């Protein structure tokens, strides 16, 4: 049994729009519709999708803040909506855009409050705080008021606050948003450590695919409230029908190259760009080109994961699955 189980979960919102002076129209919007997935203990899963796809709604249901309209949801074997407060002791949540730290107080005070609110035993609290302080390099910041911390320092502070009570599951909502490159890599290194050493299950939403490439073996793409892809990062290429690009430099300007298994997507003087399916081998195409054209130089470009996902979003856009009722 997975630590997170989501079966056919849906969530509709009622939106009231004005129609005329006094009349108001009610409209049902499905934020999440027939969501299905399971996360095993110790996994680190990237949860991505365009804005408004239903990511935050999912996280809110998994923390018990929102009650699902339909379906079955279990986190650490309990129903989050029914046992929100009890579950809160066993999960950690970090919202990248909202801090839970106390603005005017030294960082240490926020941790002290967490110790009391989460009823963390003293020995465990000391050990966890020590570990977080060391890994996140917070030592010099503990006595600084949170308002004086930089964004990156504050995010590290928030991460520590979410982990002091040894949560079984950690939800991260855009944990690297707005951070510089150095802060991002520090946050990622810490999360990797937490996930591999503590075996904490991590569910991460982000728009930064580097987060996913460096942390998650598994990625779920959600769009229009449904999971449109669930699997390894490599599999995304196949699922997204991505293409590799062969950049060919010829000795002279030629007509667009015609070889089986490839098509010309662009030409610029003697240089031509050929697209081949990501899974196909480039060798036969290359051999055919070299045999029939005056080949001078060539290079192969792997498809960018951003492009793959962008294509995935726009293709599900073309077939909306009953977003509104």
């Amino acid at each position: 049994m997975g630590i997170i189980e989501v079966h056919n979960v849906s969530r509709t919102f009622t939106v009231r729009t004005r129609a005329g002076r006094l009349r108001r129209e009610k409209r049902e919007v499905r934020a999440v519709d027939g969501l299905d997935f399971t996360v095993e203990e110790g996994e680190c899963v990237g949860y991505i999708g365009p804005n408004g796809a239903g990511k935050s709604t999912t996280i809110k249901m998994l923390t018990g803040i929102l009650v699902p309209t339909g379906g079955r949801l279990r986190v650490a074997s309990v129903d989050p909506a029914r046992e929100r407060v009890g579950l809160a002791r066993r999960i950690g949540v970090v919202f990248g855009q909202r801090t839970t730290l106390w603005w005017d107080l030294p960082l240490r005070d926020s941790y002290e409050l967490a110790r009391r609110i989460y009823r963390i035993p003293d020995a465990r609290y000391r050990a966890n705080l020590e570990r977080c302080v060391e890994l996140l390099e917070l030592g010099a910041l503990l006595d600084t008021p949170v308002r004086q911390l930089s964004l990156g320092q504050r995010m590290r502070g928030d991460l520590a606050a979410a982990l002091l009570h040894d949560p079984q599951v950690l939800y991260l909502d855009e944990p690297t948003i707005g951070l510089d490159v150095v802060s991002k890599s520090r946050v990622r290194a810490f999360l990797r450590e937490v996930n591999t050493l503590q075996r904490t299950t991590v569910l991460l939403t982000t728009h930064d695919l580097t987060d996913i490439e460096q942390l998650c073996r598994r990625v779920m793409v959600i769009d229009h409230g449904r999971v449109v892809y669930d699997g390894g990062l490599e599999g995304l290429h196949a699922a997204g029908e991505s293409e590799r690009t062969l950049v060919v430099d010829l000795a002279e300007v030629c007509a667009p190259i015609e070889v089986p298994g490839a098509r010309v997507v662009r030409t610029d003087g003697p240089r031509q760009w050929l697209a081949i399916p990501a899974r196909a081998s480039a060798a036969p195409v290359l051999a055919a080109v070299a045999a029939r054209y005056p080949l001078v130089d060539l290079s192969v470009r792997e498809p960018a994961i951003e492009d793959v996902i962008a294509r995935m979003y726009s293709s599900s856009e073309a077939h909306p699955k009953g977003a509104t009722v």
Partner: protein
Amino acid sequence: MADTLAARTGWALRSWWLVAGMWTRSIMSYRVSFVLMLLANTAVTFLDFVVLMLMFRHTDRLGGWSLPEIGFLYGTSTGALGVANLLVGSIDGLGDRIRVGTLDTVLIRPAPALAQLCAERFSLRRVGRLAQAAAVLAWSLTALPVHWTPGRVLMVPLLLLCGSVIFGAIFVGGATLQFWWGEAKELQNSLTYGGATLLHYPPTVFAKELVAATVFGVPLAFVNWLPALYVLDKPDPLGLPEAFRFAAPLAAALAATAAGLLWRAGLRAYRGTGN
């Protein structure tokens, strides 16, 4: 989590205490600002009583009540409001939290949301109102020509306690309406701060319909008007049975229960509709 009611109440109070402590320390990091606000708060509330005293320079009775009697109403009404405002008054920030979306950060903590929200922005500067109410009440008790029986002596702390609970219930109930209706804060303010001002004056100066509404509608009359009729031995302008003068504990219990149920319904609606 089959916690007993006592354990849950204890945990709610402790959560309140922890969060209020954090706010006290937060606010104390701006000491000068705190002192200025405390002084301003005390001065502004005291002006209310100055207005009453000025009125009595032109007349020595107001609706048949003397200045010390009005002082009794003023002290008890302001005192009860002061206690409620200090302990749960911050709940009126709920609407802002819903709009900005920070209510969620409260809901992911393993502590009762109501307790956390009541302790929000807790500030000791609000004791200014209380100190001032205590001073006026102390003066009126010494100046009143009342024959102090044990029942009357006991009624004073009892009415302060029940009055605080009633005002607290109005704070919570009014704020809870913000789950459905964003501008409910105005209504709540008019019932709490406006209600307390209403209770500064004797019930005899108002229309009977208004006084009846504070008995059978929003139970403001039980804060001090009805108990004061007993303490000061005054006739009831509505001619209600004498039992009403002692019904403050019942009214407080009903008000608190209603507010609690409304809060649960409001939170359920928020989590159920997400609006």
